């Protein structure tokens, strides 16, 4: 088992004919992901890589396929529309890779999500991968290996850092999710902690946060109250100055709130095992599982 996706998951790619979309769609297919169709306006009727049919709209794709998930690579200008298109089409899992979506557009998306059954990952994220089964995103597949740790992160390469350690340590991963670095994201740590807690194969969860917002704190409340599995935490940005956006639009200490130290202290208080530096994430996980 794993959460959300596995080798049977049928995936479409919105923006499949664009530069990013086509590159990563190919990589996902190589990894084994069942990419059944693509969607690009005015490209309906063509084929991607000579085998994947492209449609103008999700509605058209839905007439031909049962769709479980979508990967969105469309430009920021149209991204909110594409996400809402997927929500209205009632696609269960929406993974938006696109970076640079205005926050106000994301508020619209959140409104749409509120009363919909879809789960959305991203935007501005590496995506989701279930090791050796299905990859919907831009992460390097080869560092992942089927195992027993679930990984959640607001970051990209820092996640790869953690995954690489977990794989090398022999623990391996179940599902890894990058929830995205924007201030307003489709879902938060909380959504997935719950799923990992219920997943039989997952024995521990690594949660990689960063400065800005309060979701690490909220997630750790859940860890304290509802979780039996160990959760290993790391927060990037102890040395980040206040008021500056550290690359990610959401990584900002504002009004003195959202510092790494504040987060770490609350997480620790709530029973999250803190990895002192990013090089010891796997080590800390091994220790937690050997307890």
């Amino acid at each position: 088992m794993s959460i959300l996706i596995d080798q049977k998951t049928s995936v479409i790619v919105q923006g499949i004919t664009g530069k990013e979309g086509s590159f990563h769609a190919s990589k996902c297919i190589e990894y084994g992901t069942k990419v059944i169709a693509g969607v690009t306006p005015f490209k309906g009727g063509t084929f991607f890589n000579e085998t994947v049919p492209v449609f103008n709209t999700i509605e058209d794709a839905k007439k031909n396929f049962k769709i479980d998930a979508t990967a969105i690579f469309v430009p920021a200008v149209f991204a909110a529309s594409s996400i809402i298109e997927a929500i209205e089409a009632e696609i269960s899992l929406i993974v938006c890779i696109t970076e640079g979506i205005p926050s106000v557009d994301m508020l619209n998306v959140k409104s749409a999500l509120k009363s919909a059954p879809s789960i959305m990952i991203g935007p501005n994220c590496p995506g989701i991968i279930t090791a050796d089964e299905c990859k919907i995103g831009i992460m390097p597949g080869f560092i992942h290996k089927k195992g027993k740790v679930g990984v959640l992160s607001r970051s990209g390469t820092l996640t790869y850092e953690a995954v690489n350690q977990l794989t090398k340590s022999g623990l391996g991963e179940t599902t890894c999710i990058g929830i995205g670095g924007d201030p307003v994201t489709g879902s938060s740590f909380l959504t997935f902690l719950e799923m990992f807690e219920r997943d039989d194969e997952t024995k521990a969860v690594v949660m990689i946060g960063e400065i800005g917002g309060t979701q690490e704190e909220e997630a750790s409340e859940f860890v304290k109250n509802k979780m039996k599995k160990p959760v290993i935490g790391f927060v990037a940005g102890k040395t980040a100055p206040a008021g500056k956006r550290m690359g990610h639009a959401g990584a900002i200490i504002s009004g003195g709130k959202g510092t790494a130290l504040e987060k770490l202290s609350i997480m620790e208080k709530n029973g999250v095992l803190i990895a002192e530096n990013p090089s010891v994430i796997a080590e800390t996980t091994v220790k937690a599982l050997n307890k």
Partner: protein
Amino acid sequence: MDIHEYQAKELLAKHNIKTLPAILCHNQSAAYNAFITLASGVVAVKAQIHAGGRGKAGGVKITRSADETKNIAENMIGSKLITTQTGKEGKVVRKVLVEKGANIKKEFYLSLTIDRKTSKIAFLISPEGGMDIEDVSKNAPEKLLTVLIDPQYGVKSFHILRMFLFFNLERHLYNEFSELIPLLYFAFIQEDMSMLEINPLILTAEGNFIPLDAKVALDDNASFRHPYYADFTDEDEEEPLEVKAKNVGLNYIKLDGNVGCMVNGAGLAMATMDTIKEYGAAPANFLDVGGTADSKRVETAFNILLSDKSVRAIFINIFGGIVKCDMVAAGVVTAAKNIGLTLPVVIRLEGTNAQDASELLKSSGFNFTIAESLADGAQKVAKIVHSINKQYNIKKA
């Protein structure tokens, strides 16, 4: 992206929010004329910099004569203003806003931001206008009220009423107040603001609510639908190296240390900075070279790091995922040659083709220090910087 007070007020005026008549002045004679033109007994001369806390720092002066307006402007323009928000170096004042005086009866605090937890728009208000809101939050949290607005349906009468009652105002003022709040909300959404802070919002003796100060941050991501964002950018207000980096698509933020960092990915870059610090050195910067760390980008990144004279060693930390490490290594070598790099460099490359990359670096002719892990690299670079610092100190001594 931060903008000036006068620009913030332009945006508010565009949405039919009353502001005080004011004239932007780049020199003292313009300020003199502004006093005459405004034909008000009293004006405020306000330094236009991208930072709050101007009042206490001497950046806002009240005067009742044209000559004094001129003198104040003369003193302000070109001077450095150091406020609680500018950092030690302060900011050079390049223009002032000369604004008509108002008959202030009461002052309030009001701000709008996006509440990340609920995905709503948050009005934060306080009857303690003109104070540092973080102080109010610490010392008198009961004087703060947050009213969350769901963007699904926007501001409703009951939201406005809650704010009005919290301000404890006389009922006859409700009409005027109830017109202001939706306008502020609308301006916030329509202009894609990420923050709108009005401190103070004043109630005049005439019964009008007017933003006396206004601080606005705009959402850079929304620039595609607001061509004016480009015109509102004031590079004078930004760190020159940050501007240079931004122009080539790099994410760079200058810090106080002396280990130059070059990392791919924002989270990993922060984690790298943190680890350097853990090993006793201090990062000179945040620098995310992004997903495609080719030789051109690496070269530009090197140039930016080297422009910072406090940098004594460089730590390159790349996790090769989609990007292949040997390509990055080749880029580093080429760039190092092109710019004649002499500073010590610690490199950690992990991921695709890391082994080949390591060979390539070793045979490059440069004395790169290869690190096995992030922690290893941080430790090594910290050691190098310490020994350099010692030498400096010996030299100095």
